[in-house]
């Protein structure tokens, strides 16, 4: 917890301002501000910087409402864009006629897919059109765009666009899409990527196992729901260069996509990302940007595009529904001897991040357990539904729900405590993963023990209607084998402060705060002494982006290395000034000092001044980091797909109303490993937020479609995400750990926080009412139905 706010101090001005008559506080800042000083966060000025609960540098604009998101920006003459979307889930486009729309009041320019130099893009396969030009594959496909003086005029003009379609037979169910005779979304087959992982002899081990358990699990399609919808502004500078302001979370690759689709050299394309109003994986790809650029070119004016909430649901990426078949062989003592998993991922209309989601899902699907005999077969298939892509956890919440529900079934059947069976099988330091990777900094057992202890796992159940459930997980940091480097530049200024340049984007997690703390720690200065400049492709170095829980680990490593290089220059400068060798020096408490002789020291500012202005060798370092991986064998999946992994356990307590099937999550105790917590407050924030997303996945959220492929609930009225009333009490514990491959021992924490939540809630429901929910979400209707089936299956009591 943050240091307690001095309530009396805070209440004093508040009280003095209350109106005597009604007790309300007037809210005119000229009055209310008087006598109030903003808190000076002392911790921001302290060294060492790592481990401090530093206040975020972007906090002031956020609480004042002064943060400029894209929709808050305007340029002279700026136009507004709206997109016409498909009426069919699957159809050939015969013609598109925009002539009537162009005559509508306020309309300045229109655009169709045929006018885009390279119309398709995608992170793995370039199968996704910016605007569909020959075929639509789901109802969110854009077919034409209009730029007009006002949003309303653009909307009115969309109604005048005539599109002729030739409807095709659609396919919506991923298992049907696997069948030979099914309609094909692209080309010859709907299966567009698959992965196999093999270890030991799974069939033999299953045949010899004391017990074999089988179960199918299914998950639903879920939307990211960033509070800020996707938004961009495109304008052409007088020099002829394109400048795009965007809510993108990955600008280096965004610029590559813009340059490629528009056929422009990269140095003529500039993306400036703003503070992003929530990402969660949904803002990793270009959407509107090239469309706006071309409309701006045609109109000769800046063009803004902001997704409506409906656009957000129907046309942006979503979480993959998984169908997962588990077969597990177990010995009498609870040792898991074999596990076979088959996963089918519903990719929707386009690949997007399916390859990564399926790959991570497959690798993680075995669970954080030592199992000698493993076989995983995973595939991703196209359907005529909203495309699925990157979303917090890349398949991990889906498989964790399955392997941890399955684990509880096994424990229950064998009469073993759920905690005990997990501890028995859990990875330990040096365990070999299903891909044969030797694991380090493994703390899954510690997380199980801490979460169970803080929850009070061994205490007797007090309330019959209540249940408790446990789930643990493992999760990798960074991309699956794929290169995902980050570069960084660190400059030390002549007053001893420093400036960091990074291409990553602040999407709400507080990454810039953490990166600043890492630079400060390496330079021996405080968090407030560092300014982090980010997210401009013209001025900041390349970065793979705010994705895959990689920023602290990958970008953080690059920043630490760059800061070390800058520090080496300071040492080389200071050594003759102090009459020692550079290797005798250290940077500490804003000084360059001789190790063990702190009285022999110079201020960093004085040394930087000397380096910069006298020696002509500015204290500036640049570096790049890419996690070390080894490609996976295509036949067996053996390899080292990730640099490192984190581990966590969550324990939930729920209350189930047997009459209605309603589930209330009362409490979640979470124990998460992130290596060194660079900023514990921000780690807690990630865990709390991840849990809320997990609660939504577990109980409420589901994108529903009708039999034509039209979404039934593309709005926040009928798509139910957790509110403040639905959120349980959350207790966060950070598991002590240190990863020697991370910056100051840090790993990452963003995605894993929402991985075990649904699993532990499902296990708690089972504990409460004895029903196993095998498909998410566990709506009241589903739980009630399961309770009814449970009651019908019980032998009838003989009436007395």
């Amino acid at each position, binding site marked *: 917890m*943050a240091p*307690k*706010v001095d*309530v009396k101090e805070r*209440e004093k001005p508040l009280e003095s301002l209350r109106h005597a008559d009604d*007790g*309300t*506080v*007037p*809210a*005119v*800042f*000229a009055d*209310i*501000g*008087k006598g*109030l000083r*903003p*808190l000076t*966060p002392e911790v921001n000025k302290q060294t060492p910087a790592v481990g401090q609960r530093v*206040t975020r540098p972007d*906090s*002031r*604009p*956020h*609480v*004042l*409402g002064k943060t400029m*998101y894209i*929709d*808050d920006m305007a340029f002279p003459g700026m136009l507004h864009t709206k997109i016409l979307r498909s009426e069919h889930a699957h159809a050939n486009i015969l013609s598109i006629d925009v002539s009537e729309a162009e005559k509508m009041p306020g309309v300045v320019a229109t655009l169709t897919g045929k006018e885009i130099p390279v119309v398709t893009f995608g992170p793995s396969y370039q199968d996704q059109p910016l605007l569909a030009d020959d075929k639509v594959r789901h109802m969110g496909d854009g077919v034409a765009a209009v730029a007009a003086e006002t949003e309303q005029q653009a909307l009115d003009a969309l109604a005048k666009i005539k599109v002729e379609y030739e409807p095709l037979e659609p396919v919506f169910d991923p298992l049907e899409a696997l069948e030979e005779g099914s309609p094909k979304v692209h080309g010859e087959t709907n299966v567009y990527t698959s992965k196999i992982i093999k270890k030991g002899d799974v069939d033999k081990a299953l045949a010899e196992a004391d017990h074999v358990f089988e179960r199918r699990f299914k998950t639903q399609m879920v939307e*990211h*729901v*960033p*509070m*800020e919808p996707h938004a961009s502004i495109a304008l052409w500078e007088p020099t002829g260069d394109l400048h795009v302001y965007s809510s993108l979370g990955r600008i280096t690759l965004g610029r590559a996509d813009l340059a490629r689709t528009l056929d422009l050299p990269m140095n003529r394309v500039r993306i400036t990302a703003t*503070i992003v*109003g*929530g990402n969660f994986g949904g803002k990793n790809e270009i959407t509107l940007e090239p469309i706006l650029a071309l409309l701006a070119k045609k109109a000769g004016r800046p063009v803004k595009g902001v997704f*409506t*909430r409906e656009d957000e649901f129907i046309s942006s990426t979503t979480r993959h529904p998984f169908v997962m078949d588990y077969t597990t062989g177990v010995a009498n003592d609870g040792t898991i001897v074999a596990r076979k998993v088959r996963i089918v991922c519903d990719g929707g209309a386009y690949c997007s991040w399916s390859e990564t989601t399926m790959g991570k899902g497959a690798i993680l699907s075995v669970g954080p357990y030592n199992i000698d005999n493993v076989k995983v077969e995973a595939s991703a298939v196209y359907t005529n539904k909203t495309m699925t892509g990157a979303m917090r956890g890349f398949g991990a919440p889906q498989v964790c729900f399955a392997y941890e529900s399955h684990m509880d079934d096994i424990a229950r059947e064998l009469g073993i405590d759920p905690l005990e069976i997990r501890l028995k099988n859990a990875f330990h330091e040096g365990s070999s993963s299903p891909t044969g990777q030797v694991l380090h900094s493994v703390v899954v057992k510690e997380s199980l023990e801490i979460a169970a202890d803080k929850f009070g796992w061994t205490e007797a159940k007090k309330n019959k209607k209540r249940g408790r459930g446990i789930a643990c997980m493992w999760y990798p940091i960074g991309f699956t084998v794929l290169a995902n480097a980050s570069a960084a530049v660190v400059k030390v200024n002549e007053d001893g402060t420093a400036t960091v340049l990074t291409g990553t984007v602040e999407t*709400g997690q*507080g990454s810039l705060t953490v990166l600043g703390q890492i630079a400060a720690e390496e330079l021996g200065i405080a968090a407030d002494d560092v300014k982090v400049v980010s997210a401009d492709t013209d001025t900041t170095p390349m970065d793979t982006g705010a994705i895959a829980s990689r920023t602290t680990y990958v970008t953080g490593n690059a920043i630490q290395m760059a800061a070390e290089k800058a520090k080496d220059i300071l040492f080389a400068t200071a050594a003759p000034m102090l009459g020692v060798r550079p290797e005798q020096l250290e940077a500490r408490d804003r000084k360059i000092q001789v190790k063990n002789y702190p009285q022999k020291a110079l201020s960093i500012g004085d040394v930087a001044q000397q380096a910069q202005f006298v020696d002509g060798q500015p204290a500036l370092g640049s570096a790049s980091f890419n996690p070390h991986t080894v490609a996976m064998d295509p036949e067996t999946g053996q390899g080292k797909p990730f640099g490192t992994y984190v581990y966590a356990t969550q324990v939930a307590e729920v209350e189930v109303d047997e009459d209605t099937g309603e589930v209330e999550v009362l409490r979640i105790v979470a124990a998460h490993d992130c290596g060194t917590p660079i900023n514990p*407050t921000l780690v*807690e*924030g990630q865990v*709390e*937020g*991840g*849990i*809320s*997303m997990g609660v939504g996945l577990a109980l409420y959220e589901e994108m529903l479609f009708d039999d034509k492929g039209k979404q039934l609930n593309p709005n*926040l009225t009928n798509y139910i*995400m*957790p*509110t*403040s*009333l639905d*959120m349980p009490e*959350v207790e966060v514990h950070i598991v002590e750990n240190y990863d020697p491959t991370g910056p100051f021992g840090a790993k990452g924490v963003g995605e894993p926080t929402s991985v075990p939540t649904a699993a532990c809630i499902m296990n708690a429901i089972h504990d409460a009412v004895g029903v196993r929910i095998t498909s998410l979400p566990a709506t009241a209707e589903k739980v009630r139905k399961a309770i009814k089936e449970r009651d019908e299956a019980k032998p009838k009591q003989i009436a007395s």
Partner: protein
Amino acid sequence: MDVTITVNGKEMSADVGAETTLLGLLRENWKLTGSKLGCDVGDCGACTVLIDGQSVNSCLMLAAQANGREVVTIEGLGDYDHLHPLQAVFEQESSFQCGFCAPGMIISTKALLDKNATPTEYEIREALSGNLCRCTGYTKIIQAIMDISGQSDDDRKSA
């Protein structure tokens, strides 16, 4: 039509269309962009403002309906050197992540505390239930409000 509204203590006038929402008037005409547009149909609460002390989704209210009334937006609470106590406690407790919901959250909190200086945890949750946040899980927001209303963790548990 002409509307005159007292915004953050200052009387302001504009000529607006009949369909103009209060949010549109604040953001587009008066460049008060602290109130956010997250859904445009009153589901998310990012556009929350006070009208005569009541919290209202400004995307659902027509500008004309606010004529002659007193509106308070996030811009009215504090400035960089003079934070409103609520803004200070939100900053101190890191009660935001992406920040998009923060202005609406702070305004809804003000509406609550103006009427009820020592709300229970349930009353806080209820007062914020119209303000969606995808980042924080609401935990640090609730914590901040418990802190500023002078309640200890023990009060919270018993509430």
